[in-house]
């Protein structure tokens, strides 16, 4: 076994190939890590391939021809700084990111080296240690991503994630196996190269999967917005229908009253008019702020609430014109009202309160609803709320999209609850007018 290891090390070409491959893989992991951690929409894109390519060439050249650990460390850190510098993020984040990447890199390398030293497989100068540490880096990276530390695309379900996780893990295991067994050096080399390629491919697949999940999420969001539009149109149609109905009714009412008048029956006329007044009072309970989106959605939802026996209270002090995009406002209000209504109609108290205020070009919206005792699950650690909605696909999408929309206006969605009521608050700033920018 020692013989094989020895001859392997002498094989300079094989070593160089393996090193180049490993280095390329490591830079790919770093690239992924940086782009996932910063989630930048417009980095200085045209420089990116050149920068990463340069990093690879410089790093490989220095390692193969000089092999000075401290020089390598310096170049590594400088290159990382340059790569992170190309991302449009704050200074503190940049430094943190470099430290994080290099920290993980060093820890993985150190860990692998010491494991191998303990097992006595090879001395720590061996370049193949880096290969193993790269597999370990992939693992750490995946763990970080799963913990939600990195904001990358859509959420991949746990099963796919586990599959991606186990591949590098078994690669470490397999590599150890290959080193320990009596395979010929060519076979070992090919196997190790194969393992690296396998990891790259799996990573690529994982990225594709993540992107497709992100796309699906976008589609769901769009559908939600469409749904709200349809709601609004329906509500307007309902209003129009009611006006026609009212006209028709009015004619009948007058005929009826005329009939009573002809009979000189004042008492009947009085009763009839009182009855009509009561009916009108019931109709006038609808919201009328003059803002079409707010009126449309609230009236539609309040109508629905009434059908479920939910008691609604509104306190609205907003201007007729608001500078938010109509779809955004409709989506935010519609989603929050949907959630509130769903909880309120299943609760014992059946209460819903909607407050909207406007001050200093800022909109403040509060929706308070009662909820059934067993329906709310709070994740204490992250402070997020889960609804126990039956439709698993819709799970949490509503609040997530509200949060995203609100953040577009530098705003915030805050949720809180007592034993019986759930409160959602939205604060968002009106966008600046063009001439002011």
């Amino acid at each position, binding site marked *: 076994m020692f013989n094989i290891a020895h001859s392997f090390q002498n094989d300079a070409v094989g070593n160089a190939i393996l090193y180049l491959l490993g280095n390329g893989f490591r830079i790919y992991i770093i690239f992924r890590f940086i782009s996932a951690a910063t989630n930048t929409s417009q980095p200085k894109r045209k420089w990116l391939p050149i920068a990463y390519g340069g990093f690879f060439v410089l790093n490989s050249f220095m390692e193969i021809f000089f092999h000075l650990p401290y020089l390598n460390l310096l170049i590594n850190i400088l290159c990382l700084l340059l790569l992170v510098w190309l991302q449009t993020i704050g200074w503190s984040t940049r430094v943190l990111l470099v430290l994080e990447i290099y920290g993980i890199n060093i820890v993985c390398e150190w860990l692998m080296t010491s494991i191998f030293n303990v097992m006595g497989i090879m001395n720590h100068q061996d370049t193949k240690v880096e290969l193993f540490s790269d597999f370990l880096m992939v693992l750490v990276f995946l763990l970080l991503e799963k913990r939600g530390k990195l904001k990358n695309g859509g959420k991949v379900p746990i099963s796919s994630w586990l599959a991606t996780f186990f591949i590098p893990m078994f690669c470490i295991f397999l590599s150890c196996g290959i080193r320990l067994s009596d395979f010929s050096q060519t076979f070992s080399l090919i196997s190790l190269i194969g393992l690296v390629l396998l990891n790259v491919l799996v990573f690529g697949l994982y990225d594709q999967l993540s992107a497709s999940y992100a796309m699906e999420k976008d589609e769901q969001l769009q559908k939600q917005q469409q749904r709200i539009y349809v709601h609004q149109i329906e509500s307007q149609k309902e209003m129009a229908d009611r006006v026609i109905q009212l006209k028709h009714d009015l004619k009948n009412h007058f005929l009826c009253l005329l009939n009573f008048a002809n009979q000189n029956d004042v008492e009947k006329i009085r009763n009839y008019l009182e009855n009509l007044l009561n009916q009108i009072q019931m109709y006038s309970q609808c919201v009328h702020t003059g803002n079409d989106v707010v009126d449309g959605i609230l009236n539609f939802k309040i109508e629905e609430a009434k059908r479920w026996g939910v008691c609604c209270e509104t306190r609205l002090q907003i201007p007729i014109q608001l500078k938010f995009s109509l779809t955004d406002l409709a989506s935010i209000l519609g989603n929050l009202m949907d959630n509130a209504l769903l909880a309120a109609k299943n609760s014992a108290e059946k209460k819903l309160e909607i407050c909207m205020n406007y*001050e200093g*070009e800022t909109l403040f919206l509060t929706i308070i609803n009662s909820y059934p005792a067993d329906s709310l699950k709070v994740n204490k650690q992250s402070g997020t709320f889960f609804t126990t909605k039956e439709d698993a696909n819709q799970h949490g999408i509503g609040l997530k999209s509200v949060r995203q929309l609100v953040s577009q206006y530098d705003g915030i969605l805050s949720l809180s609850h007592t034993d019986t009521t759930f409160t959602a608050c939205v604060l968002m*700033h009106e966008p600046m007018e063009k001439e002011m920018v």
Partner: protein
Amino acid sequence: MNGRRNRGDEMFHIIICDDDESFCSKLEESVLRTGKALNEKFDVGVFYSAEKFYEYLQAGNHVDLVFLDIDFPGKNGVEIGALIRNEREDESIMIVYISSKIEYAIELFQNRPFNFLEKPLDTSKLERTLQEALELSNRTKQKFDYILSKKQHSIWCRDILYFRSEGRKVELVNTGEPLIFYDHLSSIEERLQNSDFLRIHQSYLINLLYVKVWKYDWIQMADGEWLPVSKIHQSKIREIHVEYMKGKQERV
């Protein structure tokens, strides 16, 4: 600034300004009744025309709070509000708009109204509004002391818009001429801890009551000046903003 005399007296001066005479007398009665219940001295005056009310202000009379109807023949509530804020530069008078419908024009909000009341009158809402107005008025009846040319002076907190620090000097921007004296913003912040002042930047300490436009990274004060919100304070200030709006929503 004409509205500053009589500040020291204990009376809370309220004006009702509406062309609907029966509503005026009903509101006046409710206000006086609430004053009695709260054990506060209210001085209530009634105007049936917005122009007459404005003349009264121009004559130098102090008003703490006005119930101002929106729909007037002639000059309406929006215009009078704008005159008070822009022409008279009176930022401290509280304007409570009264309307029979809850359709509000954007211009109303630019006059920084204290609240809105709908017709027919909801007495419990009126009580809440008056209570909040009194609380605010008492809170701002604090005095701020500063030393200028080795002499101690003082100014009502409600007259202060914001402090701007430049080196060792502090500029106090108020409803009158700005005052400049030597002090540290942090020490001023400490002295004003229980009031509505908020540090938004190393160089700015603002009075929340006089925010005209509130953005995430900028705040415009009632005098039209845009002040920056420093990056490290932004998210914390947004939380304070949420709490401030929440408190306001619960009370009025």
